[in-house]
């Protein structure tokens, strides 16, 4: 009986292990093709971003690590979009007032995420703010320890 139970447990453990390995393989963790494709995707995204940014925007992103996008709806407001996915900072009249966490529902290369933020802020700001997870900082100057995403 004990041996039978041990064998059953071993079978269950083996099945779980096989399932985990299959999931990892399916997500591309062990696939060199997918990794190569990811770097190609990053390169394509970087090229598209370079193409669609103005020269001052390209310089700002390269030198400061963020892209400043002026609000179309609120005077004196600008959004700082980081070069790598993370919190977008909102400055009102030069003061940090909010941090926003907004992400695409499908995975995108980092440069495409920067472009996504820029386009949404410029062309669909109301929807962008509606979807965002917002941390208000007005008057506190505090920094959040939460991560985004």
């Amino acid at each position: 009986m004990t041996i039978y139970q041990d064998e059953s447990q071993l079978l269950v453990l083996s099945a779980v292990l096989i399932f985990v390995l299959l999931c990892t393989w399916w997500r591309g963790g062990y696939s060199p093709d997918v990794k190569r494709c990811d770097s190609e995707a990053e390169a394509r995204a970087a090229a598209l971003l370079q193409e669609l940014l103005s020269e001052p925007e390209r310089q700002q992103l390269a030198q400061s690590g963020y892209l400043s996008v002026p609000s179309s709806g609120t005077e004196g407001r600008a959004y700082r979009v980081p070069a790598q996915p993370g919190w977008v900072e909102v400055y009102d009249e030069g003061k940090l007032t909010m941090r926003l966490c907004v992400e695409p529902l499908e995975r995108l290369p980092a440069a495409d995420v920067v472009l996504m933020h820029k386009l949404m802020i410029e062309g669909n700001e109301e929807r962008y703010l509606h979807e965002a997870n917002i941390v208000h900082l007005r008057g506190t100057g505090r920094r959040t320890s939460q991560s985004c995403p």
Partner: protein
Amino acid sequence: MGKLRLLSVRGDRTVVWDEKQAKEGDLDASAAVREAERIFEEELRKGATAFRVESGVPAKRLDSFDPEADQIVIVPRVAGG
């Protein structure tokens, strides 16, 4: 020449069309415009947002396909993280 660019995990996918040739009656060009419009509508139905992008001008959201746009970028649906 119009260009539709769809952001995706593999980088952007590009669809091109020639509105001028389509207007002149070129069947292939007309088919390309229709295909771009079909993809545009399909992506918006999935929750994506489309923007008309022009150099030096803020992006403008598009709710319907504009065959005269030089460049349209479609971003997937976003949500708070």
